Each structure stands twice: as C-alpha cells, then as structure tokens.
C-alpha cells in the first residue's frame, strides 16, 4: 500500500499508509500525520488519491508546502518525491495499489441552463486548472510570506507594534478594539482596517483617518510604508519579511 514517511534529520518519525481517505498533515494533534514544529500550520496540507494519482494540496499554510524544493499549492506526487514542510521531510512511496475512489459511480443529473449546479471534484479541478494554467505561475512570486504590521510612531496606544492577524481590525478606545487608543475623548471606534482578497483597506469609523496626509472618506487600500494618522496617533503600515 502507498505510504508517507515523516523524517526529521534523516530519522524516521512516523509512517502512514495512504488509503481512500485523505491524510491530513499539520501541527494540530488530530491530524493523521501530526508534525510538531512551530513552522508548521495547524492544518498544513493534505494528501489523497484522485483518479488513481496521489495528490498533495497545501491548505493555505503560512510557510508553504514544498515538493522537490518547489513551493506548491497542489501537485501530483510520484514515487520517491520529497515533500518539505517546515524542517521536516516526507518521503513519498506510491508503490502498491491505488485505492478505489469511494463515490466514483455517482453522476450528477445534466444541469439545466441557468440552474445552479455544483461541479464535482474532478470536473472542478479540470476547469480550474485549465483556467489557471497561466495565472498560477504568476501567483508563485506573490505568495512570499509577508506579515502586515502597524508600527506606532507617536501617540498613546497599548502596544508599540501590531501584527494584523485578523481580517477585521478596529482602532479605537473600545475594550474590544485591536489597537487600543489611550487618553481622554478618544472615539470608541476611530477607524478600521479590513482584509479583502486583494489587500488591507483602511476605512473611517467615528473619525476620518488620513493616509500620507490625505483624508480618506471611504476604504482605501494600504501600501507598504503608508503613513496613517488618526485621533492623534501616527501609524506606519509595513509588510515585514
């Protein structure tokens, strides 16, 4: 039966067979292949069989999944491939019989025009892959890990620096705000920074902030190095490598 062997510094840590069920790899203990290392995301990647081929898929991990030293989002695995996750190596052994897909016989009824339909996994892969053939390669360069950070230049806040980990960030005096303003007469929610698909956007709350000296009435996308001023606090938005 095909299997994955987790190695650390050339020593075997664990072996798992790959059957019809997907194998999950990550730092959380409930993974099929738990990897105890801080560089590994809780649910880092998964390996499964699709149309008779072993496939690995990165689950939007922070530090990435590498197959033969190439960062991948999804890749077919071959016998002898080396997968790197954090400082661990996973050896791929595809010898033996591939498992039979569970729901291979299920065929959806032919969809009617304008009727909502769901692509089953195989169709969806093909369509996305065709469509993404060109887009994919461009994405690789952009996925270098950068950490969005706000550095406090002046004004009173509860921290000197904030890493924007949440999709919604509030700047204000409120106890629930991520970036807490201190002092009298500060607004509960002065401004907000929200993560959208294409970046981080600063928008007004009770006050209208300025970016690089220009006041912004509506959401504006932040660029590396932007200077933000709000309620007497000056912040520098940067992407840390």
């Amino acid at each position: 039966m095909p299997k994955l062997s987790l190695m650390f510094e050339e020593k075997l840590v664990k072996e798992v067979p790959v059957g019809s069920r997907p194998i999950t790899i990550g730092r959380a203990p409930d993974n099929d292949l738990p990897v105890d290392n801080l560089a590994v995301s809780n649910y880092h990647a998964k390996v499964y069989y699709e149309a008779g081929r072993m496939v690995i898929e990165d689950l939007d991990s922070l530090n990435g999944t590498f197959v033969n030293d190439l960062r991948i989002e999804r890749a077919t695995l071959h016998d002898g491939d080396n997968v790197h996750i954090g400082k661990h190596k996973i050896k791929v052994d595809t010898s033996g019989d591939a498992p039979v897909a569970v729901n291979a016989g299920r065929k959806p009824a032919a969809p009617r025009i304008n009727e909502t339909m769901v692509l089953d996994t195989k169709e969806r892969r093909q369509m996305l892959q065709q469509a993404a053939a060109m887009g994919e390669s461009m994405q690789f360069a952009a996925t270098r890990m950068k950490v969005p950070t706000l550095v406090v230049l002046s004004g009173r806040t509860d921290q000197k620096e904030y890493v924007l980990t949440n999709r919604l960030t509030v700047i204000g005096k409120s106890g629930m705000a991520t970036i807490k303003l201190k002092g009298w007469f500060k607004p509960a929610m002065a401004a907000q920074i929200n993560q959208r698909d294409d970046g981080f956007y600063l928008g007004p709350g009770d006050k209208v902030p300025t970016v690089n000296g220009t006041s912004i009435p509506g959401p504006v996308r932040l660029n590396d190095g932007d200077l933000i001023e709000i309620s007497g606090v000056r912040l520098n938005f940067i992407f840390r490598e």
Partner: protein
Amino acid sequence: MRIASGGLTDIGRVRSNNEDCFQIVVPLQLFVLADGMGGEAHGEIASAMAVDAVVKHCIDVDANPAARVIGPTQPNWSPWTKRLSTAVHLANRSIFRSAEEHPEQHGMGATLTAAWINGAKLSIAHVGDSRAYLLRGGSLLQLTRDHSLVAEQVRRGILTTAEAEESSMQSVLLRALGAQAEIEVDAEEHTLFPRDVLVLCSDGLTRMVTEPEIAGTLQAETDPAKAAEKLVELANERGGADNITVVVVRVEKSSKGWFTWLRREARKHSTRNGTSGGN
C-alpha cells in the same frame, strides 16, 4: 449588546417556486439562510433541510454543550464557532443521505450561510455563494467568500470582477451542501461593535443590487425588517431573476451610556430615600 433583526424571502419575478429559506432564532441570536438547487421541488427540500438541521443542532447543543464537534476546527475558535461549523457538517450529511436514499432527489443541494452572535462575538459558517456582509463605519465588507467558479477565477486573477459579473458560468458552484458525503466548511469569528449591521443574503439580491446600494439602503433604513423589505423590493424592480432572501441584523449598545446610568442611579437614590423616609 442589543440585537435587532428582521428578514424576508421572496420568490422574485421570474421563478415559479422559492428555493430560498431562512430562520431567525431570536433567543439564541442565530441567523441561518440557505439557497436550494435541484430539479422539481427538491431545491426547496434541500434548503429547508439545511436550515432546519443547523437550527436544530444549535438548539440541541445549547442544552448539551458537551456535544461532539465534527470537522476540522481552529484551536482559537470559540465553542459557538465550533458548534456552528459542526451544524453545517451535519446539515450536509443529512441532505447527502436523503439524496442517496431517494434517487429522485439526486443532484439536490443547498448553499448555507449562518451567523451566531454570543456577547460581542460573531461566529460565521458558510458554504456556497450566499453571502454575509458587515456594514461598519459606512463601509460594506463581504465576510464570506463565494464558492463559485467565477469568484475563484477572480481570486486567481483570471477574470476581473466586471468580467465575472457578465460570465455565463455564474451559477457554477464549487461547493454546496449535499454534493458530497463530506465537505469543507468556511468558519470564522469576529468581534462586533455597536452600530454594526450584519446582512445575510442569497445571490438573488447580490446579482441584482450593487454593494453601494446595499450599504446605502442599510444606512437610510434603521429598522432591520424594513431594510430587508427595501432590498427585496429593489432586487424585484431590477427584474427579480431569482429568489431573493435578506436577513438584516443590527447591533446596538445595550444602554444609552452615561445619561441612562445617571437616570438609573438617580431613581435608585430616590427610592432609597423613600424607604428611609418611612422610618
């Protein structure tokens, strides 16, 4: 936090049946919306099953907090987020199982978007192309990602947003309840602030009405039920090509601040004086 909510579902101007479904469970502050698909009446069955299954699990788990969690979770999630995500996994199983048992239901499925408010924490669970929006400080932010082919193509930079809106592939979903035995559920949590407005809606709204119009309507109409009504009306004026469902949830401060406090204190003071005066 004080929560006010209202919702409405409408058949639209073109379809002959309403495959959308929603429920608001006021005591739990739980809001669930689903959009069904599948021939005959099966879309209706699927969306009703989805909403019922989620509501039922959330009510059950409220009484029995030790209930099992299903599907992958993040360690930092609140118990409610874990429960809501579990509820969606269960809803998927029940639709899938029903379709397996009844051959005529083959291909039925549903989108699902659910929101659960506990204190200041908002838990969201989501599968498909219905949406949750948050209006905060005048800007409208889509909290959910559409699991549709065109949305995925936009994220990958293959289509522009404008091209996606014109695409004939808009109805192709990558994920829906009932399509597979096990599915991936998007779940996340956020902190709510006073004056936030949360909207759940089916694609019958978002294909007819633009985001700035949604934001404008929510700002102009502070009554949640009336705001939902206006949004449905607007979608119908534009042609109402699909069923339209809107749920609006408004978050308010629980008290009116220092003035209320002052008045309450004054009242306490006066009653205390009253009793001591009797001695």
